[in-house]
């Protein structure tokens, strides 16, 4: 008991603070020149602008042993680059719910606006965060007390999907497009639901649309060997049409080169029942659950390969100079990867659920996607791909974006 007490007493929290160069860093400077004392537990990392503070850095902070992380920049209206802090604010509005679903302790993640004139606020913020973190004890990222046994959680049965429809019309449309030479290939499905490429009108006979046809075929549009085939006819269920809308907005496809052959019916609003059920677990239980899930990830990147939105020529997981996230299939590397994958989908994921279906380790990535989809709907009334020509969610901002989490 006394040893434990002693350890508690000896604990000095480490706070990593990512601050912008123009406001908070100068605020810290002012605190220094004014001889305002604050705890030495904070490590300041100066970046040009909060708009350039990558969300990965929060995770990285915990990886390297931080007990709390602070992100701080200029007050709204004060940004040296006009709007960097507005962009940051919007991103954090979406990133925080993701961290909550993953079970991060949100009492350890702080956001503030501190201007160059607010030396005293800097002093106060650092003092308070340090004391609050001291009371919380060590963060112990990815190490759970009591062996961290994962809670048993099973998702509720998914909502019924609408019956597949439109197979016959699809076949005749495909045959017609191919025989008239309007397209040189139709991308559709075979009877097992595997993607299939029909290049002659008679090939259209074997195209199918049944319960097994779930692959998001828009994924093929990014590939140069597919583009080289010529004008493409695409069998397009509602989730595929949403993907086309997002890809078009992001200037990834030339819609004129694609003829859509619609099939199926929309299943309506996204289903958040599984997410609701999951969020009833306590944060540490959620973290323990994800640890057990991510431990199985071998980094085969099937989740990335099946996703039409993952079109980067070089994925952040493959950048090694410097390394952004670890490519190793360790718990730490896997958390970093899945957080990055999910957040890169913020406001972009069309909810086809293919990543979860494709995962050989059975990891329910849809929970992360649903978290971001719901945050986008609740906070911005935005659904990725729902409307052709809609502006992207991230990359723009509003002066009215909520900042109740920013001090």
């Amino acid at each position, binding site marked *: 008991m006394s040893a434990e007490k002693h350890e508690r007493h000896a604990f000095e929290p480490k706070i990593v603070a990512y601050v912008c160069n123009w406001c908070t860093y100068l605020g810290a400077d002012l605190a220094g020149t004014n001889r305002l004392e604050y705890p030495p537990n904070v490590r300041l990392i100066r970046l040009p602008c909060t708009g350039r503070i990558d969300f990965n850095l929060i995770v990285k902070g915990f990886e390297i042993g931080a007990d709390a992380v602070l992100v701080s920049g200029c007050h709204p209206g004060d940004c040296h680059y006009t709007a960097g802090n507005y962009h940051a604010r919007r991103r954090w509005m979406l990133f925080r719910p993701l961290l909550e679903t993953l079970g991060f302790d949100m009492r350890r993640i702080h956001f503030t606006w501190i201007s160059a004139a607010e030396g005293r606020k800097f002093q106060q913020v650092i003092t308070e965060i340090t004391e609050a973190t001291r009371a919380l004890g060590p963060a112990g990222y990815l190490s759970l007390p009591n062996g961290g046994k994962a809670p048993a959680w*099973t998702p509720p049965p998914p909502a019924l999907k609408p019956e597949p429809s439109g197979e016959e019309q699809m076949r005749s449309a495909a045959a017609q497009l191919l025989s008239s030479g309007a397209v040189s290939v139709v991308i559709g499905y075979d009877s*097992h*639901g*595997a*993607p*299939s*490429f029909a290049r002659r009108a008679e090939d259209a006979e074997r195209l199918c649309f049944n319960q097994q046809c779930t*692959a998001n075929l828009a*994924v*093929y549009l990014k*590939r*140069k*060997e*597919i583009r080289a085939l010529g004008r493409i006819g695409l069998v397009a269920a509602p989730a595929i049409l949403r993907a086309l809308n997002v890809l078009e907005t992001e200037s990834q496809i030339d819609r004129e080169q694609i003829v859509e052959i619609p099939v199926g019916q929309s299943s309506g609003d996204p289903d958040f029942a599984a997410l609701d059920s999951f969020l009833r677990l306590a944060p540490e239980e959620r973290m323990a659950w994800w640890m057990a899930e991510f431990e*199985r990830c*071998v*980094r*085969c*990147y*099937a989740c*990335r*390969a*099946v996703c039409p939105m993952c079109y980067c020529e*070089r994925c952040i997981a*493959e950048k*090694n100079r410097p*390394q952004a996230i*670890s*490519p*190793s*299939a*360790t718990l730490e*590397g896997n958390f970093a990867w899945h957080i990055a994958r999910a957040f890169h989908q913020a406001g972009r994921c069309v909810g086809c659920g*293919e990543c979860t*279906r*494709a995962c*050989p*380790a*059975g990891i329910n990535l849809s929970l992360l996607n649903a978290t971001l989809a719901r945050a986008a709907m609740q906070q911005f009334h935005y659904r990725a791909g729902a409307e052709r020509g809609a502006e992207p969610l991230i990359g723009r901002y509003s002066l009215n974006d909520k900042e109740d989490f920013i001090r």
Partner: protein
Amino acid sequence: MSISAQDLLRIAADWIAQGKQLIGPKRVKPGLVLYARLKDASELALDGFLRPANSIKEAVFPRHEVLYRYRVTGGAVELLDEEFAPAETLVLAARPCDAAALPILDPLFNWDYRDEFWNRRRAATTIIALACHTHDEHCFCTSVGLAPDATRGADALLYPLGDAHFAVRQVTAKSEPLVAGYRDEDWPAMPAGPPVKFDPTDVQAFLEANFDSPFWNGVPLRCLGCGACAYHCPTCHCFDIIDEKNARVRNWDACQFALFTLHASGHNPRSTQPERQRQRLQHKFRIYREKFGEILCTGCGNCTRNCPVDLGVLNVLEAMPHG
């Protein structure tokens, strides 16, 4: 005398009690069985599924392995070379198509360089395989010279008799301490296994003659370029070596990733997915055979079962216009 499931679990429990590592099929969630390290013998799943979705290669070739650590002080690098002593490991209820992969890979890991990580783990690992009494449409062990009761790579082989008992065949002396009391003299008749689906010699001939063929732009075109096939394949063994946190580590890598062959110049000799699919087939059925005299495939079918677009070795081979 056959062994009861109960006795088998007792062997497993004793093994764990001795502080050793036990690997076996584990039901991780509904519909998913994986070979995994078992903390308790009761986690061992013996029936009710065809085969685990991954392979046992991780027992000897982990997805992530620290080769050595180092310390950098100023301009000096100090190597912290620790003696590598793997945990004694028992792989229980491995499928014969998993066990056979290890001797197929031995020559590779001992070719121009003796890989001590592989060799020491191999030496520390005992494999008790479980013969298959069933198969599915993705299985093709009989097409690559194996069978549902192949003993290759196994130290002992069990066969389910159906009454919670298993017939036992001891294959090597390594399994003696575990199964000595249970050996069966009369081995039950085996089911036939999956029908032969292709002749590897025809495949090899096709691959030799058709490096540049429109065939590769057909069925393989749907490959999406993930590593699900390779990472769950008993025989795929490619790896990448990187430096991370003052350690040199080895991670699995796979030929279907575009990055696998990307040069520093930006040139990629295998720049499209069909070329990468061709490489996978060439390596398995021609290159490895020419170099080591073995087919780099045990017919387990994991590639197809794990593929997000139902594309495995077998689908490509069956689409081939050969004999």
